[in-house]
């Protein structure tokens, strides 16, 4: 469901296809830029949101990663950080926010509730946001320590750094989105 | 060069002025009007009247048109802006007649007008500069200048009176 960077498809050698050496190193540069400028959209609904505040706080300081500018407008955000329980009433909202985000976009499910429903296996709680949006990184914990949230962020940085500029146009990605009925 | 610039500016001015009238969307109209003011300021600069150019921009483009835009933005809120305004046949006819008459009057007025020439020897290129302008305003045209300021005062008082809402309403 999410993109596994460990598995690399065999690519045509450089210079044969359109993307030559220049293009790939250019991609690397953009990957680096993206890596260091991931603006989060803190979709904080409950307890994990407080831990996110701690992550923003002086002791952990998410800004070291270039991610301290929280963009509450989905248009400007790069990562959707879903923190806290997502009830079934809220599910469509998450999806809508995801749809409003501009590519490239990543999703982190922070904490047990967002990832799987956690302790709340109840009629009203969505059992994991991967039922409505594709999730790239899961962070376990209830709530995770700020270190773990930063770990999750670094995981996304890995993804952002190694991602091809064309991945978002690839048929696999389109199929993934289609499976979530997004656009 | 200056001449070419003049023609360019003039055509732009006319075009934009026309667009002000033609545009369906009032916001576009206002924006074209702003460009018109800019081009007029350009003319002022060509005439070496920098002060006038700057004041024109500050007062008209910078303040008055902002207010226009402000009001129009409010108006556009509820309804779709591009629906167009339905005009009755009668008003179309009267509009045409009135416009035609104005056109005739203008032609008549301009027919005998003479382009004022200037004497290259006695022409003072600094005439549009601030100092000269100030001097002229405060000596030769002092009375009209002061009268104009009274007019402004009256207008201001009127605006305050109009802007003051009845008691009980929220002011902001």
């Amino acid at each position, binding site marked *: 469901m999410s993109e596994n960077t460990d598995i690399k498809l065999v690519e045509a050698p450089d210079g044969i296809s359109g993307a030559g050496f220049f293009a790939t190193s250019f991609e690397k540069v953009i990957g680096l830029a993206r890596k260091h400028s991931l603006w989060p959209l803190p979709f904080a609904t409950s307890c994990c949101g407080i831990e996110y505040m701690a992550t923003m706080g*002086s002791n952990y300081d998410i800004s070291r990663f270039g991610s301290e500018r929280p963009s509450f407008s989905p248009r400007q955000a790069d990562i959707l950080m879903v923190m806290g329980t997502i009830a079934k009433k809220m599910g469509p909202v998450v999806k809508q926010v995801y749809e409003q985000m501009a590519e490239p976009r990543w999703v982190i499910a922070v904490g047990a509730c967002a990832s799987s429903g*956690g302790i709340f296996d109840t009629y009203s709680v969505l059992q994991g946001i*991967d039922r409505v949006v594709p999730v790239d990184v899961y962070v376990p914990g*209830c709530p995770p320590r700020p*270190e773990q949230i930063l770990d999750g962020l670094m995981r996304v940085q890995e993804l952002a750094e190694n991602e091809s500029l064309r991945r978002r146009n690839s048929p696999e990605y389109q199929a993934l989105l289609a499976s979530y009925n997004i656009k | 060069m200056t001449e070419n610039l003049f023609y360019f500016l003039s055509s732009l001015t006319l075009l934009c002025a026309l667009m002000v009238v033609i545009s369906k969307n009032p916001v576009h109209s206002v924006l074209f009007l702003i460009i018109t003011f800019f081009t007029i300021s350009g003319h002022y600069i060509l005439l070496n009247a920098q002060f006038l150019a700057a004041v024109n921009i500050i007062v008209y483009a910078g303040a008055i048109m902002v207010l226009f835009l402000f009001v129009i933005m409010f108006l556009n809120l509820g309804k779709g802006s591009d629906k167009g305004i339905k005009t009755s046949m009668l008003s179309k006819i009267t509009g045409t007649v009135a416009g035609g008459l104005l056109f005739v009057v203008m032609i008549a007025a301009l027919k005998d007008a003479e382009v004022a020439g200037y004497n290259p020897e006695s022409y003072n290129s600094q005439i549009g500069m601030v100092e000269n302008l100030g001097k002229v305003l405060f000596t030769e045209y002092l009375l009209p200048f002061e009268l104009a300021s009274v007019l402004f005062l009256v207008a201001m008082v009127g605006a305050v009176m109009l802007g003051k809402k009845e008691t009980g309403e929220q002011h902001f």
Partner: protein
Amino acid sequence: MEPLSNRSKKVQKREMTFAEKAYLPAIAQGLGITLKHFFKKKATVQYPEQTRERSEIWRGLHVLKRDENGAERCTACGLCAVACPAEAITMTAGERKAGEENLYREEKYAVTYEVNMLRCIFCGLCEEACPKAAIFLQDDKVAPARFERDEFIYGKDRLVEPLKTTETK
């Protein structure tokens, strides 16, 4: 309304003085405080390189303990699964066969033991419920973030303490 108890105390709320009305003193004071912090030592712990100290009883990642001989302590009694409010623990029990005494301490042992780390809320009730001191929440490890949901089902391969380090920490 008259007071209900004799302990009430009105919060101090005085009129603004002229100086306060002029905004500037309070602004200057605020600026002074922030400037003081500007030159203060920074509180940040640079996480991946440095880690913040954690308490010894921090409830981190689970581990299945071995006893001093290296045999697994768990006897698959199922108390942890019952105590888990998130229902994250599943296990199947098996009988110990002859010759496996060095592997499992008791006659019954957990053939499979899975903790769903995404469900787990790290409340520590399993540790408390375990009568054999087999399951333990470590203070020096936390469950890491991962890309796939399946990777969070921790089986015995990842839960059981490696053989070499038998002493606790």
